[in-house]
């Protein structure tokens, strides 16, 4: 019975010690990396999707895709 408690505690300690990096130090990311990761890349991906839609809407306005989305859009108005 008593043997089961100790190893558990040892595991907890190990978890705390290894949180972050292998050498135990937590790496701090700079603002540039943060902006790149949270703003630029997602912005480019989402912007690309939006721009793709714009191109489709402008150049294939007779296609069923465009008609469908325009119809949906017009439901609100």
């Amino acid at each position, binding site marked *: 019975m008593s043997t089961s408690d100790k190893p558990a505690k040892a595991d907890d300690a190990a978890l705390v010690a290894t949180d972050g990096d292998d050498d135990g130090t937590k790496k701090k990311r700079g603002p540039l990396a943060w902006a790149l990761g949270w703003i630029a890349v997602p912005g480019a991906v989402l912007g690309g999707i939006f721009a793709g*839609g714009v191109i489709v809407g402008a*150049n294939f*306005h007779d296609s069923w895709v465009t008609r469908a*989305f325009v119809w949906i859009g017009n439901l609100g108005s």
Partner: protein
Amino acid sequence: MNWKRIKAVGKLGLLFGTPLLVVLGLFGTGVYVGDLYREPITSFEKEWLGLDVEVAPAHASDDADDPKEEETPPKAPVTEPPAEASEPKPEPETKPEPETKPEPEPEPKPEPVEPTPPPAEPTPPPVEVPPTTVDPVEGPLATQLATPVVVGVKVLVDDALVERRPDWIDYVQRTLSRASAVYQKQFGVELELVAVGRWGVPIEGLSSLELLEDVQARPREAASVVVGFTERPLDNRTSGKAFTPESDAPFNASAAVVYANASHRDAHLRSLLHELGHLFGARDIPDAAHPDYQSGSWMSYAPVPESRAPWIDAANRARILERKQKPFAPASAPAPAPAEPAAEGATP
């Protein structure tokens, strides 16, 4: 167990469905916006990105075109006459000129017409060709306007133009369809592109009259009219050349040469409107003091910016309307004497 499975599937659906929904929503919003601002987007693609796309008419065209039509209230009367004229219409249609004409078989006297001087004025950057400005007509002219006529056109393109515009077939189609839109509104004449071909003619060294004779001699196939598009730039004297029938001639003329106006995006459009007008008997307006010149009729020599809607003076419009149902000179007809206004600067 079953409940757990349902829960897991729900989580999975949520996990994949939410991002999918976001992406689809974003794309759909883009499509909606793209459709809404079609005209500026396509003109941006064409002018700034150099893409070969057809610039859409202002999006309003679906909705706001109507207001534009309404802007010219006189149009209403124009549409009335057709209804009234629908009864007498069959008469003019059943008594086509050709039936009576073949007997006399008078040789068509189209004469080479005056080249149009080029617009000397530097033109603004490319602008979408605006719809034509249509003046109201009444009486018999309104009846004529309401009578639809389709003219088959064959276009020949010289090597210089083919080299300059790799999309030359599209270019010809676009130019002719714009000209057709203008002619339909102004005269009730639809220009139908029957054939496009390369024009094996030297790209330098021939006068406009020689070019015209060359075009005239080419097989017309099923078309009524042959037009040669050349990349030759406008000089100070020539923007094109066409045969013009006399007012009492039984046939309309059937050949024209159109030069390029490099300062216009639609480099051949205005010259095409002009030269086609000659084929139907329209006359040049070379006098700069003439009010129609100053108003910028496309039959004048006035330098008109591309952004201005094509417009034709009343006298020439009446000439074209009166002659629009005449047959075109048969292909076998002898080439018109090139002697008359051979001089490039001559007035008709």
